[in-house]
């Protein structure tokens, strides 16, 4: 055994690569199986389903996080805050609109399959969720407006 060629850095790097490229795709299959079994029992299966997708996207998510963390110079004191803001912006402006589309599709399915136009049938919840997903910024501004209005205190 040639210990002179073994370094801790290489070990951790290859462990991470092995986890991301070998183990996580394998676990993705396991999570899909779990999602199917939970679906069959009528239980919540979204975590396993999205978890499986995320397991297949470790490299992509890593690149995304690297991009979030390199929005300013390495010695910029605000870099951590900027990276958090970029992550939240990405989630609100990229992921949530896609989620809104899926909610609209779910609403259409509810209406089409169950044909029950009633506020308690679930389609309204999907519709409101889709609308809320598309107006995160507006909701934030609304909350800010309320808080700003209240800075004078109770008179």
């Amino acid at each position, binding site marked *: 055994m040639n210990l002179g060629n073994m370094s*801790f850095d290489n*070990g951790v*790097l290859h462990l991470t690569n092995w986890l991301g490229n070998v183990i996580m795709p394998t676990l993705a299959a396991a999570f899909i199986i779990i999602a199917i079994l939970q679906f069959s029992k009528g239980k919540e299966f979204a975590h396993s389903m999205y*978890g499986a997708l*995320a397991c297949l996207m470790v490299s992509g998510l*890593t690149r995304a996080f690297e991009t979030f963390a390199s929005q300013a110079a390495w010695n910029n004191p*605000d870099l*951590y805050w900027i990276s*958090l803001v970029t992550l939240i912006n990405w989630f609100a402006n990229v992921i949530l609109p896609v989620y809104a589309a899926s909610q609209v599709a779910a609403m259409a399915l509810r209406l089409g399959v169950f044909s029950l136009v009633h506020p308690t049938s679930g389609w309204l919840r999907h519709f409101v969720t889709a609308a809320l997903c598309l107006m995160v910024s507006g909701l934030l501004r609304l909350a800010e407006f309320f808080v700003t209005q209240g800075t004078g205190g109770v008179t």
Partner: protein
Amino acid sequence: MGTPQLLNDVISVLLLLAPSAAMLSLVLAGVSLRREGTLTFAIGGGFTKWMFWAVVFLTLQPLLSWFTSFGVAVPLPSGGITTSWLANFQSDVSQFVSNFVVRHLVPTLAAYFLLRAVLDAASGQHPLPSILAAMFLLGTQTTYSLLQSYNTGTQYATVDVLDSLWNHLVGTIMPIAAVLALVGAILNFATRKPFLRLVAVSLAMLTVSAIWKLLTSMM
């Protein structure tokens, strides 16, 4: 009156054994990395203590130059060890550390840590600390060479090595650890455990230098 030769030889032996002591400190640091039992290392804990001593032993001679700046002369003996049995003692201890401990004992210890990782997983604990400890032990020689390359040989050598080690930790190890944190976040999400903390940690690991600048700008 000059310094007795035997005393000079003893000083030479101790100075020449400093690298071996540094190597042993690194091995003990690796063992402490697992014994502390968490994914993080405690400041002031066994790992940091032994790493610190490894750096001190490695930079012992430059560190002694501080005494000269205080006005205390430190005449370090030169010309090797003239007393034969002391020379043999130094050679034997160095050989023991490099051949017995580092080349043979350390890989065996690392193998035991791997076994420990499997048993940790079986008992519901996290296997990563044992795996990291095994990796650290297997990389002892390379870590020693890395520390040596950071030795500036000046009176600030000890601090320089610690400083460079921090840069290495932040610039090389932390970005890799960020991916491990991301993997942990995904697994926690899929198994319905809290995951946002790991997302924030992953970003923090990618921006440690900036957080340091933030801290210093707050002072």
